[in-house]
């Protein structure tokens, strides 16, 4: 297998990791919002920030895959 093939697999794995992470954040945020609708705004903005953190890790993977 060539190095680009391995890089593509790496990018895919990073995407899986980010998918699991953002899914967990989204699920918990939804639950929290259903339980406490009055906290809706705060939960949403912190969920967005956390999603950005998780996503950044996946994007590091993508960038690493682009470089090789």
């Amino acid at each position: 297998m060539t190095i680009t093939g391995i890089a593509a697999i790496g990018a895919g794995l990073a995407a899986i990791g980010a998918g699991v992470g953002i899914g967990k954040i989204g699920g918990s945020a939804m639950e929290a919002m259903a339980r406490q609708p009055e906290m809706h705004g705060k939960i949403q903005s912190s969920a967005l920030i956390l999603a950005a953190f998780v996503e950044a890790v996946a994007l590091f993977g993508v960038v690493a895959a682009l470089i090789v």
Partner: protein
Amino acid sequence: MTLNTFKSAILSALFLATSLSGFANENSDTQEDKEFNAKDMIMHHVKDAHEFHIITLHEGKENQKDISIPLPIILWTDNGLVTFMSSEFHHDDTGHTIVEKNGMKFVKSHEKIYQLNAGEDAVEFDAEHHPTNAVTPLDFSITRNVFMMWVSILVLLLIFIGTARRYRKSEDNVPTGIAGFIEPLVVFVRDEIAKPMIGEKKYRRYMPYLLTVFFFIWINNIFGLIPILNGANLSGNIAFTMTLALFTFIITTFSGNKNYWKHIFWMPGVPVPMKIFLMPIELIGIFTKPISLMIRLFANITAGHIIILALMSLIFIFKTVAVAPVSVAFSLFIGIIEIVVTAIQAYIFTVLSALYFGMATEEEHH
């Protein structure tokens, strides 16, 4: 008033989305004989360039015509400063058109300008893609990214000077016109970003920077989505995001108080071996924060551009119109998501900057 601004926001979003599908027409009659290379096409759109290429008419035919805005090329060579317009290369990016200035020969190959050695008339590369018979002069050219940055600065100045004038005119500080659109955004940055992240007492000092970063990133993200500007991919340029992240880093470092540095070098409330163990981790943390800011914005915007272009390339890879409805629909869908992402990425960058400022200025409370 609010309903009006909301309506115009929806309308402009729809306009952006529909104009994205214009990409299909733009590329549809290209390269009938040549093998289509999706990677080259995408990289050409995403990367910086020395001219502002808008459209190529009759490509591959005798009356081929490139419509583009020429931009100035500024080079610092061994014999001093050399300037000329990029139109002198006649849209050539393969290194065949030679421009002679002050007795020096220049060629452009893959958006890089090489100065040929005496007696040579084509640039040659070795295995590591270093030129063997040419040198690369220092390139200070006004490239299309620099050009787009100036355009966005101009647009921002027009918007905000207009806003300021509205306030000066009105007697009771009621926002009218453009001010009615800008005021909620400024209040949003103040109440949702600066106050909760930095704190009531200190947020005022950081407001100018946070507002500037928010609007500058947002408007450049939006410009990146307008197809006719053809890859005005400024916020997807790592040098641009690095500069912004560097500003955040400098402001964080210089506004750090005693409490902030104590948490880095001698973490309070943990045993001594743990303090020593945490010190290098926290030190690295100072630098990884701006680096992650840089990569996040760059990779998000670039990935968005690549996805839209790759979906469009599917038509030419499969060489059938039957794929067109699918790829147009999907890139429209991604395009609408990207419109949301323009705002979200500007928001995230601003929030995280504010968060770092807040960490740097936090008072001791235990």
